[in-house]
């Protein structure tokens, strides 16, 4: 949200959109689906003409029918759930991030090149992950899941579940969780019991640079995660430098903030193209945006929308399997991962 506001401030410093400054009004639904309706009505009451949704998947899904009724163009920049931009009630809603359906082939690309044939999976017991993990494993037909252990998402110790990953053992371990804390705990305790294991995790900790230091020193080294940032992408470098002017020199662009930037950018382009803030007109303009250069992904990765394409990425090159280096920071794209971008 802070990045989105910074992006809007930059737009306003250049005269705003259609010659008028952009004003933001916020409502916090606490990612609670029961509060989403009231929030949207509050925003409409405040005069909102475009929604940017930075909230959890269940809340976004709950909002679709309301948005369809209100006919307000909506971008959910950080949402990766495949059902959000899909019918029903998807005429006015779009997502910027790569859908999780694209993750399986990307993991397979790297794992096959690395000779990984079997996988042990550690997942948290949240409903989101309980649904997400089987879908992800189903899309990874290149590896066989031989051992699956579930642990409470708010556990303070999962050494028992991790110990069970040894039998039967596998070529690699995949940590699947939507909780940064759980992923950190898992990495810490896997490093204690299996220091030489090849560990993968999903996008959660990967895209939270401020939390990497919370893992025990050295525990993330060599781990591979589903990121979205290639430091060599010129657009990533440009946007990071621009945002560092307002957000401080220590600001580091990550997947979520890059998607927020792209969301504001596409909103700007759509309203400018429509020449009006009328909902249906802006929506129609959104659906004509093609080959928009993205701040995340590999160089040459673009975003496009259309009447039948509500998930913006043009292909899987928005996904980067990144490997951590010696100081628990992300060093470089994993050298076994070779996408065709």
């Amino acid at each position, binding site marked *: 949200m802070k990045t989105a506001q910074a992006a809007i401030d930059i737009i306003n410093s250049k005269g705003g959109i259609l010659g008028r400054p952009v004003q933001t009004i916020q409502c916090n639904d606490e990612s609670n689906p029961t509060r989403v309706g009231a929030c949207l009505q509050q925003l409409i009451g405040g005069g909102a003409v475009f929604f940017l949704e930075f909230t959890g998947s269940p809340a976004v899904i709950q909002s679709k029918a309301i948005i369809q009724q209100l006919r307000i163009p909506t971008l959910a920049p950080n949402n990766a759930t495949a059902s959000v931009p899909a019918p029903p009630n998807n005429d006015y809603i779009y997502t910027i991030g790569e859908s999780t359906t694209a993750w399986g082939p990307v993991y397979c690309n790297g794992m096959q090149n690395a000779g990984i044939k079997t996988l042990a999976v550690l997942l948290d017991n949240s409903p989101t992950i309980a649904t997400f993990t089987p879908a992800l494993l189903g899309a990874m037909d290149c590896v066989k899941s031989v051992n699956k252990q*579930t*642990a409470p998402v*708010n556990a*303070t110790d999962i*050494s028992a579940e991790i110990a069970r990953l040894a039998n039967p053992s596998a070529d690699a371990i995949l940590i699947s969780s939507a909780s940064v804390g759980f992923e950190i705990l898992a990495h810490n*305790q896997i490093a*204690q019991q299996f220091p030489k294991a090849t560990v993968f995790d999903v996008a959660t900790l990967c895209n939270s640079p401020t939390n990497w230091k919370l893992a025990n*020193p050295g525990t993330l080294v060599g781990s591979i995660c589903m990121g979205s940032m290639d430091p060599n992408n010129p657009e990533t470098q440009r946007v990071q430098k621009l945002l560092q002017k307002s957000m401080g020199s220590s600001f580091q662009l990550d997947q979520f903030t890059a998607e927020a930037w792209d969301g504001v950018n596409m909103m700007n382009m759509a309203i400018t193209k429509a020449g009006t803030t009328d909902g249906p007109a802006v929506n129609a303009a959104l659906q004509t945006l093609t080959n928009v250069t993205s701040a995340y992904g590999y160089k040459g990765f673009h975003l496009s929308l259309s009447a039948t394409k509500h998930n913006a990425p043009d292909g899987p090159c928005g996904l980067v399997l990144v490997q951590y280096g010696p100081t628990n920071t992300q060093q470089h794209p994993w050298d076994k991962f070779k996408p065709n971008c």
Partner: protein
Amino acid sequence: MNNPQLWVSVVTIGAFYGLVALSYYLTLIGAEFFNFAIGPYAMVAALGSSWLVVMNEWPVWSAVLVGLASSAVLAGATELLVIRPVQRQVMGGELPSLVAVAAVLFAIQQLAGLLFGYNSLPGQEVFATQAFRLGSAGVQAAAVPLIVVTLLTFSVVAAWIRFSRTGRCLRAVGNNPTAARLLGFPVNRIRLITFVVGGLIAGVAGIFFAPTSGNGVSFQAGLTWALSGFLALVIGGTGTVWGPLIGGLILAMAQIFVPYYFGGETVAFGVLALAVIFFAFRPQGLFFRKVRI
């Protein structure tokens, strides 16, 4: 059960449960009251000190002292402003004050969420130590201070109860406050001391336990910690000051070995089974005092 890593986890978690149970123990023997708000005291100390360090860039030691002071003040305030007035109104009846303290538990949790935010914050390491390997087991940096502080706290409390005047008064006041009052014991003061000391110990537990978990501490931890500490006390009993620690270790064994043998989904069932066994067959716990009449 021959995986040494799991035993390291047992000792670490057991130490924490033991400390929380010790807080319960003190208010039980000193005021004859189950203070269920102990879990939130521990949470406030841990979360508050983390908030001061992470969000406000305070030095760790200053934040920890404020955290400990908060838990002690909350405990004292619970006794003075909630339990005592309610018990006075209902002539010492227990149920209304238990209900009142349950309300305090939830109120403190929600207040903590409002003040410190609804996201988890990482625990703060009070003593900078290094992780090391003990044979094939890894011992994380924060585990050793927790275990050492636990043993120290239990030793100090045992010595306090046995050798200090206030400590010796504790049991007399807790067993029969009316008789103690008639005999000239400063009942109200003793009660307040047990609540404040109990709150302080809860704060120590929360602060030293929080950095052992990568999951950090959230405002919702108070209820879980309250229930775990209570169960540890039920298992260990009140016959000796070391009973809560034994209870904590047994509870930790259930939490580690049940999922190890039966899967991560069974941990709640294992703890439930342990609770039912003790409530049904040994409600006085493993260690209890036999009183000759």
